[in-house]
């Protein structure tokens, strides 16, 4: 099994290289992308099953012993995130191939997409904080290219904002790394976990808050999230779907990993995290209500839902973190699906502004259903996965006696439902007054080409499956949470 661990990083990088070399033939690039991402998905699911049965595993890259070398660690949380991320990347690639646009006209799309996949995998699997920095940069640089692919004026403007903010976050990450190395003499996560215990308590608290700040910019926490609703809607739809589903979750993963592994229980900034969670939830959904464009509303929702995940983390109990992990799984799938549906709307109707479209559910019933199911799930309506996830978090919050945050989360959930009905009423309900100019017969009949619709249907099926199999999945999340709250187990796997 340990030989499988580096593959989710190596295969996409090798595929990216091949994809550039053979860039003249688009069908070759597509084949490479699909084969590589399918292989990565299968490998990551196999890894997940193995790790769940046998416990975590670690690989020392280049056979350099930890803590001197770089370690790749596959524990439950890492393999859960890796499995979901790989499947999402594959589905969105199929969608992008179906849509054409930048994917068809630019040579760079497929190689850069595979580099993004490699960066995401590396972020999840790495056990070394500086390697996490490198993996973040790999992922971010690929995202800079993808978000500006097309070169339109608004893309350049928002691309600049996105790149500058991300560079500031990277400089802060480097500063945190420098200070951590100066204090402890290592950057290996397991070794840091051991050595942090020797530092004075104030220094540990300072590191906890600094790391929260660094990853909070990437994860779009309050008050660091304003770049997200600005830059995400202007990218091509499949690109936005991947970003919405994955990039912020990598930030959340880093927050979970560093707060639970590096900071001992007494120094964890629980109150601060819960306060940030409540503010993120509230400001995100209030921003969503004010918007009038499907993609912008959904972008503000990303921010709001991030607040839920951080709330689960801030409780620092098994129930809270299990709720956060399950919420992450549910949200990755549902958010990606919603952005793909908004891409379907934009592809057939030409725009996403609520004032200009209407009646899509009557014109394209399939697209209407593909929006309705994930939207109800996001708003937390039973029996969908969102309901289960939110109930789990509310229960954990009540057990943890965090009454204010629980109240805020329930109110925000109602407001999320309100903004979803705003999209539904504005874009999908009523008489159709959308002009569809499309030469593809599938688009005229169903609202999208076959790969686009197929990928979206597959993702909706996955989100329904999450709801149906919520029992075993929640138990998996609880096992992952128990692992996370026990850093000694992680240290044992790496340094043994």
């Amino acid at each position, binding site marked *: 099994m340990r030989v499988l661990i580096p593959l989710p990083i190596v295969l996409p990088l090798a595929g990216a290289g091949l994809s550039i070399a053979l860039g003249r033939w688009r069908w070759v690039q597509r084949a490479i992308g699909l084969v590589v991402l399918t292989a990565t998905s299968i490998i990551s699911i196999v890894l997940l099953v193995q790790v769940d049965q046998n416990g975590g595993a670690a690989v020392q890259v280049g056979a350099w012993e930890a803590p001197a070398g770089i370690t790749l660690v596959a524990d439950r949380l890492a393999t859960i995130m890796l499995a979901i991320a790989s499947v999402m990347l594959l589905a969105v690639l199929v969608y992008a191939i179906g849509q054409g646009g930048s994917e068809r006209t630019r040579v760079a799309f497929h190689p850069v997409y595979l580099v993004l996949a490699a960066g995401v995998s590396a972020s999840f699997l790495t056990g070394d904080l500086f390697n996490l920095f490198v993996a973040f940069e790999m992922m*971010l640089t690929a995202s800079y290219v993808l978000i500006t692919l097309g070169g339109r004026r*608004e893309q350049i403007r928002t691309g*600049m904002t996105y790149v500058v903010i991300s560079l500031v976050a990277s400089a802060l990450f*480097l500063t945190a790394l*420098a200070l951590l*190395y*100066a204090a402890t003499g290592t*950057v290996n996560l397991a070794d840091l976990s051991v050595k942090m215990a020797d530092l004075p308590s104030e220094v540990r608290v300072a590191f906890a808050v600094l790391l929260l700040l660094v990853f909070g910019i990437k994860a779009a926490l309050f008050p660091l999230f304003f770049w997200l609703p600005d830059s995400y809607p202007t990218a091509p739809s499949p690109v936005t779907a991947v970003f919405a589903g994955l990039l912020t979750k990598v930030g959340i993963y880093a927050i979970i990993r560093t707060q639970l592994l590096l900071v001992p229980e007494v120094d964890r900034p629980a109150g601060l995290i819960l306060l940030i969670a409540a503010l993120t939830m509230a400001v995100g959904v209030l921003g969503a209500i004010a918007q009038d464009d499907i993609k*912008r509303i959904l972008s503000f929702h990303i921010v709001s839902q991030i607040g839920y995940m951080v709330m689960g983390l801030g409780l620092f109990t098994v129930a809270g973190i299990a709720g956060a992990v399950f919420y992450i799984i549910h949200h990755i799938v549902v958010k990606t699906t919603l952005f793909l549906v908004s891409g379907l709307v934009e592809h057939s109707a*030409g725009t996403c502004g609520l004032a200009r479209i209407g009646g899509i559910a009557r014109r394209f019933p399939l697209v209407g259903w593909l929006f309705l199911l994930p939207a109800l799930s996001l708003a937390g309506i039973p029996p969908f996965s969102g309901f289960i996830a939110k109930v789990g978090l509310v229960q954990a919050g009540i057990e943890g006696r965090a009454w204010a945050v629980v109240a805020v989360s329930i109110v925000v959930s109602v407001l999320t439902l309100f903004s979803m009905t705003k999209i539904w009423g504005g874009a999908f309900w009523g008489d159709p007054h959308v002009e569809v100019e499309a030469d593809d017969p599938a688009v005229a009949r169903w609202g999208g080409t076959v790969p686009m619709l197929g990928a979206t249907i597959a993702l909706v099926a996955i989100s329904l499956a999450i709801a149906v199999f919520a029992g075993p999945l929640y138990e998996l999340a609880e096992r992952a949470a128990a692992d996370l709250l026990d850093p000694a187990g992680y240290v044992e796997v790496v340094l043994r």
Partner: protein
Amino acid sequence: MSVVLAAAAAALFGYGTWLLLQRRLTRTIIGIGLLGHGANVLLLLAARRRGRAVFDGAPGPFADPLPQALALTAIVITFGVTAFLLSLAWRSFELTGDDLAEDDVEDRRIARLHGVVDEEIADEELLAAEQADETRVSIDEVET
């Protein structure tokens, strides 16, 4: 070593942040460069002791090679991204004809939609473009 380098890193961070908040894109990019340099100086500071380079057979105390390796990696990454950022700034200059960071048109439009009037719009052309609803494009022009 320490105090002077620490002061240098602090100065670089300070200047870099101030430049980052400027309106001209070239100054923003220089500011980002300075921020990166400040972080790299801090990485070198993290080594905490002077010494010779680590060569086989050389005598005496060695300098810690790991922060130097970290700094090199960070410099290379920052170099690549700064090159990309410069190309973005050039494209922005090609599209708009000047070097200024652009305004958030969408944010203003939403504010106006909700009756929050913005007094600061000096660019008449921008205002006219917003009012003509220039953001509507047909499916052929949109490269999505």
